[in-house]
Each structure stands twice: as structure tokens, then as C-alpha cells.
């Protein structure tokens, strides 16, 4: 409140009352938004952990034959690569983010004489690449939601620590000042009246 000049008028008092009313109405909304964003971020975090578990499971499943991926007769890079990640824009907890849809792969045809393990390797790589791309997308969502959460938290703090207490204090001070002014006016009027009466008697 220090450094803020208050206009001690009834108009200002009414304005501060309006500010207080709006702030008290907005605060629960921002608090709810904060909770919703936190819950959404946690849910996305859990989803990422779940996807990581699937990736590990896939790696474990392939552990028995992973050695063959080093077959120097086959250049795996030649057969599969990521072209682009397809995502769409959605609203999550009131924030616009991109949601993973699928990965568009560049897959070269497998010739008849290519080793049979290549089919399994391409399947495995497709799945792992899809899962990793989904994680990437979810992490970006978390980044955006965390930014929004920071802003909402700043607003909650602003309402809790500044706007509401300031408005309350301003209303109280203006009220006191207006009351004092009123008393002073009455007192002055009484003095004037008494003086006039005294002059009339003398």
C-alpha cells in the first residue's frame, strides 16, 4: 500500500469496492484453473511414464535377438526413417497444445532376398519411434501447460497478496477519512453557529 496515492472520494471508494468484488469473484476461478492445470500436468507425466514402461518392455522383448541388428550385411538406416510427426491442435485445461496423432515413416520396400529378421526389426523400430514421438509431444504439452500454470499462480498471488488487501485497506481508509471530514464539517458548523449566536447576544 506504501507509495500508492488514494483519492479520498466517494467515487474512489465505490471504485475500490467494485475492484474488491471482482477480485473476490475471480480468485476462486484462478485457483480452480491452477488445480486443473496441476492435475493435467500430473496426468500427462503419468502417461509419459507409462509410455516409457512400454518402450522398456519392447526392448526387453527384443533383448534375445537385439544382437542381429548389428548384422553388417544389412543397413537398417536405408529401410526406415521418420518423415514427419503428425499432430493436431487441441485444448487441454483451456490451453492450446498439439496432440500427437501418428508418425509418417519413410519405409523402403523389403526385397525378397532381405533377411527375415528385417521385418521384425522394422516393426520394433516403428513402434519405438511412435512411442518416442508421442513422449516428445507430451513433453512439449507439459512445457506449455507449466508456462500457463506459472502465469495463473502469479495471478492468484496478485489477487491474494495485492489486489484484495489493497482494495480492503483503501475502502477502510477512505471510509475513515470521509467520516473524519463529516465530523469536522459538523464541528465547524457548530462553531460558526455558536459564534453567530454570541455576536447576536452582544
Amino acid at each position, binding site marked *: 500500500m506504501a507509495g500508492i496515492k488514494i483519492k479520498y472520494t466517494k467515487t474512489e471508494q465505490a471504485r475500490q469496492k467494485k475492484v474488491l468484488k471482482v477480485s473476490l469473484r475471480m480468485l476462486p476461478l484462478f485457483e480452480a484453473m491452477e488445480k486443473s492445470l496441476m492435475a493435467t500436468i500430473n496426468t500427462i507425466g503419468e502417461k509419459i511414464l507409462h509410455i516409457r514402461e512400454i518402450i522398456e518392455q519392447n*526392448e526387453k522383448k*527384443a*533383448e*534375445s*535377438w*537385439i*544382437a*542381429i*541388428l*548389428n*548384422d*553388417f*550385411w544389412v543397413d*537398417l*538406416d536405408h529401410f*526406415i*526413417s*521418420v*518423415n*514427419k*510427426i*503428425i*499432430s493436431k491442435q487441441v485444448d487441454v485445461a483451456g490451453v492450446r497444445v*498439439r496432440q500427437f496423432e501418428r508418425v*509418417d515413416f519413410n519405409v523402403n520396400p*523389403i526385397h*525378397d*532376398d532381405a*533377411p*527375415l*529378421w528385417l*521385418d*521384425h*526389426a522394422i516393426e*520394433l*523400430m516403428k513402434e*519405438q*519411434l511412435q512411442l*518416442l*514421438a508421442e513422449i*516428445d509431444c507430451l513433453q512439449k504439452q507439459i512445457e506449455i501447460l507449466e508456462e500457463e500454470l506459472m502465469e495463473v499462480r502469479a495471478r492468484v498471488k496478485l489477487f491474494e497478496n495485492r489486489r484484495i488487501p489493497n482494495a480492503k485497506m483503501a475502502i477502510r481508509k477512505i471510509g475513515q477519512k470521509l467520516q473524519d471530514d463529516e465530523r469536522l464539517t459538523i464541528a465547524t458548523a457548530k462553531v460558526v453557529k455558536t459564534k453567530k449566536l454570541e455576536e447576536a447576544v452582544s
Partner: protein
Amino acid sequence: MTYLLCSLPSLSFAQHPPITMEDFLSDAKAQLASGKFQKLESLDFRQIDTFNKDLKGFEDIMFQYREDVKEIRKAKAEKRSPNLMVLPNEVVSKDPLVCEKAIMKWQWDELSSLEAGEHFTFTELLIYKLKLQMLSRLESFQAEKGRQVLQAIVNPKMKEDNS
């Protein structure tokens, strides 16, 4: 040729290659006529068209093998059991490494059959090279390196479609 074949270490399936391809070709170059050496040098297991008339029997087997591989892929797509001509049924194993090793063992045995009766001939030398290639390939099946290959492919920089 006899001296060369006598000087080469014997090969058995899935062993560590007892001689490198470079050493083998260097020895062969020193002891073979240039025409024969060129035939030997150009021979590649992965390319049937490099097989010459000395390996005609194996070329036919490899054609049948390709038909079987085609049939396995087709059967998998159609979700049925494959009807194999030459490959043993164990190659339809779910584990790709077991499957590949079974195929390679079969190829090894086929080469050994072809080798029977061939003593100190050029065919024996060609088969030796093919077997040495197979051993080098088997040697490359290493889990740690396989993991590295997988990681290198699944963690590339990806382009995102922001449209």
C-alpha cells in the same frame, strides 16, 4: 591351389573366424592365377549373380531359399503356416536371431554338401570364401552393438508437422 587350400585353417559353423577376409584374399592373390582370383574376389554371398558355374548347384539352392523366404513373408501376412520347399521348419521361429542362425546353419550345411567330393578344386576355394563370409557375419551379431544400432535409429532429430 593345393598349397593354398592346405594352408587355410578349417572352418566350423559359429566359430570365431580363424582368418580375416583380407588375409584370405591376400594369400589367394599370391597363389592363384589372376583370372581365378578375380572370380574369387568378386564372389559375394549376398549377390547370387556373382556365383559362377562352379557354384551352379548352390545358386539353384539359393533361388529356392528365396522362394521360401517369400513364402514365409506371404504366409505371415495371410496368418497361415508357410509351405517350405528347402528351409527347415524351425526357421519360422518367433525369435529372429534363432531363425536367422537356423537359416545360416542350413546354408552352411548345403555348402558342405556341395563341397563333398571336391578336393583341392576351385569350387572348394569358392565355398571356403562363402563360409568365411558367413562366419564374419555371425561374428557381427553382438548384443551391445545391436542395442547401439537401435538407439541410433530411434533417436534421430525429427521434423514436426506444425500445419
